[in-house]
Structures are given as structure tokens and as C-alpha cells.
């Protein structure tokens, strides 16, 4: 991992905020999975269990004006960015109350009010569009930053290379956040990637690149603080390669045959979520009661969102003719 000199450290409030966002992701995912298992949601689900520190810490530094472009495994990124859960649930349930009126689904959630601009199912495509949003921020004279989320496998697609080069040449306020969970679908990182660290690729594009412990809030905090500062002050993009592990395979139903039992168990034993909770208690940052009440309120929020989503109306077939263009296509 790359050390930063004078690395800023998260204070108690920051750690609590990061934990809140992590728990919101985890509680929400837990409910999504159990609702799928009950047969009440039908969607391909790409779990991010184990990766929560990354979007939680990234989002700690973002406001509603800041924007993200994310991927199919991106529900965590929206939840971390405090997207309201009701329109999210209605969307994944395919209901018209969904943020995209049920026309995008989990893989294409968009919620501009909280800066969720694009969710793409195409590996690598979050990055070129993040550049455009960042170009707009610059033209607006705003200090808005844009985060492009993607996985390690996405650093092997052409779009990554084109986007990093352009972002660097144009000094765009983008932060490229790569969640390196060591696998791209079933392919091991080292079997498909030419360098031992994706952060090294930043060198070729003249931008700072760091390999960060993506399960460690302090390390994530320090690097994200520096990247946001760079972006907001007009110094340009940063690539953060955040090392992590996904506990529940590529997509729900994946049997994990391509990883060893040992490595998975080791990763799960180091689960960053209970670890941070313990730290909050041990360091006197939060009391057990406080954390229990946080959990309860998040579970209530999730349950309300689930009920709202599942009770929604199915979109009318007129929706097939709407939003293709600004003008509705005549029946």
C-alpha cells in the first residue's frame, strides 16, 4: 500500500459517518437478498458485501452536487451516497414509482438529485462519461467533483485507458475509484492483468495513482482526502486502486468455484464492517446503545423502502413509447 505523507486521519465523527454508510449498504443488501430469496424481487444481483468501506469513505467526502458514475455492482455506491431508498426499491422491483419508472432496474439506477448520474452494465463505461460530467463542472466554474467507480477487470478495457489519458490532459476533476476485489467474474486478477498493481497504470497517464487498503477506513480516508482536494482545486484526476474482496461471488447464484475456500474464509474473517463497529466502541466513539439504535433506524428505513417498492404500480405499457425521445412516440 502507498503511504501518504501528512496523511489526514478520520476523527470520531468521520468514522461514525463511514460506519453509518457501510451499515446502510449492508442492511439494504441483506434485505434485497432475502426478498429475492422469497421470490418477491427478480433481478440479477451483484453483491458488494465486503467492499463497503470503499464507497462509504468516498461518499463521506462528497456532497449532493458531486456526481458519481457507477456500475452493475453499484447499489452500494448509491446507498453510500445517501440516495433515498424508496425510489431505489421501487426501481429494483420494476415499479413506476422507481427512480427510473422501472425502466432501468438495478443495473441502470439514476438519481440526479443525489448525483447518481449513470449506472452502466458495460464494463469500463463509467469512466469516459465521468470525464464529460467533470468537463461540465469545470466549464461551470464549480468545484464539483465526479467519481467513476469500476472494478479491477475494467482496467483492461480500452475505455479505461482513453478516459484516464483524456482526464489527465484536460486536468478534469475526476476521481477514478477502482475496487480491486481480485476477480473479474471468474478470472483471477493476475491471469488477466499485466501489472501487479493497477495504480501503476496511472504513471502512464501522468496522474497520481495509489494502491489503497480498501478495507481500511484510515487508509481510504487519507487517500480520498488528497484526491478530492486535488480535484476541487483544479489539479486534476487521481486513480485510487482500493484493495478489497467480495464475499458473495460475482452475481447471486455464483458458486465461487474459482476461488479457494481458504482465501475466502480469510477475507471474511477480516470483515471490515464488524471490525469498524468494534473500533467505534473500543475507542469510545460510539456506545453500544447508539449503534443499536442506528441499526434499528436503518432497518426501519430499509423495511419501509421495501414495502413502498413492492407495493408500487407496474409501469403502463405506454412507457415503451416514452423517454425514447423527449417527445412521446405516438401510439
Amino acid at each position, binding site marked *: 500500500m502507498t503511504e501518504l505523507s501528512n496523511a489526514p486521519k478520520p476523527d470520531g465523527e468521520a468514522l461514525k459517518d463511514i460506519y453509518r454508510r457501510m451499515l446502510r449498504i449492508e442492511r439494504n443488501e441483506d434485505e434485497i437478498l432475502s426478498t429475492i430469496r422469497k421470490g418477491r424481487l427478480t433481478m440479477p444481483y451483484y453483491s458488494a458485501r465486503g467492499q463497503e468501506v470503499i464507497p462509504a469513505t468516498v461518499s463521506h467526502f462528497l456532497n449532493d452536487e458531486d456526481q458519481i458514475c457507477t456500475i452493475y455492482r453499484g447499489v452500494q455506491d448509491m446507498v453510500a451516497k445517501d440516495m433515498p431508498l424508496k425510489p431505489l426499491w421501487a426501481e429494483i422491483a420494476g415499479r413506476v414509482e422507481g427512480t*427510473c419508472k422501472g425502466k*432501468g432496474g438495478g443495473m441502470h439506477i439514476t438519481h440526479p438529485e443525489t448525483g447518481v448520474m449513470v449506472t452502466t452494465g458495460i464494463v469500463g463505461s463509467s469512466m469516459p462519461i465521468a470525464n464529460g460530467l467533470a468537463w461540465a463542472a469545470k*466549464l461551470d466554474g464549480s468545484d464539483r467533483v465526479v467519481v467513476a467507480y469500476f472494478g479491477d477487470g475494467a482496467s483492461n478495457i480500452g475505455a479505461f485507458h482513453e478516459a484516464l489519458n*483524456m482526464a489527465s490532459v*484536460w486536468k478534469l476533476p475526476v476521481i477514478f475509484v477502482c475496487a480491486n476485489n481480485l476477480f473479474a467474474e471468474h478470472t483471477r486478477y493476475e491471469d488477466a492483468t499485466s501489472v501487479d498493481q493497477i495504480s501503476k497504470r496511472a504513471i502512464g497517464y501522468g496522474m497520481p495513482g495509489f494502491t489503497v487498503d480498501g478495507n481500511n477506513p484510515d487508509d481510504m480516508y487519507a487517500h480520498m482526502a488528497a484526491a478530492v482536494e486535488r480535484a476541487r482545486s483544479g489539479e486534476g484526476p487521481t486513480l485510487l486502486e482500493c484493495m478489497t474482496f467480495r464475499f458473495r461471488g460475482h452475481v447471486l447464484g455464483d458458486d465461487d468455484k474459482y476461488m479457494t475456500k481458504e482465501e475466502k474464509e480469510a477475507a471474511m474473517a477480516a470483515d471490515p464492517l464488524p471490525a469498524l463497529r468494534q473500533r467505534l466502541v473500543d475507542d469510545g466513539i460510539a456506545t453500544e446503545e447508539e449503534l443499536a439504535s442506528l441499526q434499528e433506524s436503518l432497518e426501519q428505513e430499509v423495511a419501509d423502502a421495501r414495502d413502498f417498492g413492492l407495493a408500487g404500480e407496474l409501469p403502463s405499457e405506454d412507457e415503451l413509447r*416514452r*423517454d425514447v425521445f423527449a417527445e412521446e412516440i405516438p401510439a
Partner: protein
Amino acid sequence: MSEMEKMHAIQAINSALHQAMAEDDKVLVLGEDIADKEGGGVTGTTAGLSTKFGTDRVKSTPISEQAIMGAAIGAAMAGYKPVAEIMMMNFTTVAMDMIVNHAAKLRFMSGGQTNVPLVIRTMTGAGWQTAGQHSDFLEGWFAHTAGIKVVCPAFPADYKGLMLSAIQDPDPVIFVEGGGTFFIPNDVPSDQGPIPLGKANVVQEGTDLTIVTWSAQTVRAMMAAPAIAEAGISAEIIDLRTVSPWDKETVLASVEKTGRLLVAHEAVRNFGPGAEIAATVNEELFGKLKGPVRRLGGPTCAVPFAKNLETAFIVQPDDMVAAAKELMG
């Protein structure tokens, strides 16, 4: 009466871009070599823009078609109106994900929360011996994609007016600049305003036969017109101008009147846009047709290099005359 200015297509586009950028500071231009330092575009189409409007709004880019389209998409979603040049239409192939999966679909997939008001300017056409990778008319691919409009002008005034509309359109537009239309100067009113997308132009009225065509093929249809008239055939020539959404109303009204239709395009005939037009006319006017709809288009091969082969690849005015005669029986 507005004054007329003689312009060719490239000058008309340049004039539209200058006007649009002056009128609306949200309009941006980007692409390879498009700023003045790099010559104002390989054909000079964007000349003068960066000098006048600055290199923040008029940006030369790396040779990165995906990144160009991504930058245009993101800026468009954030309220700008980018005009992105993809130098040649064949180069759209390396940016198809951005164009088809993103620009064209984000409005729908987001349930209308976002939209992508961008223009892709792209040049193409056989006749320059640029062979297989610099000549294809691929308008049919984009017309087959929901969510993107396809504009293929033929005349300078249309280039200007349609470009002004394309820039202000709230949805993505691919604006095809046909090489075969470039060097024929024509009158453009000095106050030429926007011309609506999706409206065809009847360039010659007639009663026996309808010819539907666009871009360079419209120019060739006009070259064929005198010989068709000499053969005693009164042809109505419709310049479609916008291939998607296409002006069914004008075409159907014309074919209802003439009872005969010839569709001619430079794109390969096989699965070409002419098939869609022919099928629609058959569905709507079956009992009223005096003969089967005829299609002319390129053969199913890559655009060839050798001059004689390239000439044979292109639907020539003579081919149109022969087809018109055949249709009349």
C-alpha cells in the same frame, strides 16, 4: 427577401456552428484536430471556432473516440450541447458502446431523468478512393437504434438549417456529412434558420414515380432527373434529409399519388434503410401500388479501392434512370 450566399456544405456547417456558439454559450465543439491550432478540422469544417470562442469550449481531443463520446455524453447530461466530431463514420465503430448503449439509451433507462442533447458530426461516402474503412454509409445501424436521430443532408442550406436544429434538439443526433455532397456550392439564405428534423423535402414534383433518397444519393438523383424526364417519366424526388425518424407522411402521400416507389441510397442495399421504407410502403399502400417497390443501394461488399470498382459500387445516376424506366414497365 433575405440575401443569398453561395456556400458549399462545409461552409454551411461552419456557419451553423459559428451561429450556434454565438447564440448559446452552452454549445461546445470537440474532436480530433478541430481547433485552429490543429487546422480547424481536417476539412476545415470547424475553422475559426476556437479562435472566436476559446479552447475551453472548442477542444481538440486525443485520438480516443470512446473518450470523445464519453466527454460529450457527460457534458450533455450536465446541461451543455456538445457537437462531437467523429472524423469518419467508420470510426464510430470504436465508439459504438458510448453511442448505442449510453447516448441513445440513457434517457429511457433513467426514466427521463437525464437526457443527452449532443450532436455527432461525421463524414463519409465513396468516391474518394478511401476504400473499405473510410467510406461506409452506416446510417441504417443508427436508425435501427432507438433513441438517436439520424440526419443526412444533401444541400448547403439544409446542412445549415438541420445543424442548427440538431444542436438544439434535446436528444442525440448523428449528423452525416456525405462526401458526395461537399463541393456543389448552392444558395443559402443569409438568415437561414433552423430546419425541423424529421421533415423531408420534395425537391422535384412529379406524378408517375416517387424517388426517395438522401445525402449524396439526392445529388445523384438530381443528376439523373433530366434523363428521367426525357424518357417521359414524371418523377417526384424526395430528399428525406432525416433518415430517423423519417417523414412517412410525405413519402406515403407521394407514393399514394404516383403508385410507384424507387428508394436509392449509397449504403449497402442488403438490410439497408431502403428495406424499411419499402416495407412500410407495402404495409400502408399495398392495394394502391402499380408495381413492386424497387431498391437501389451498394452491393454486399466493402467499398473497393480501384476507381472502376468504386464507381460500380456507387448507385450512379444512370442506374437510377434505368430503374425508373423499368418501374414504368
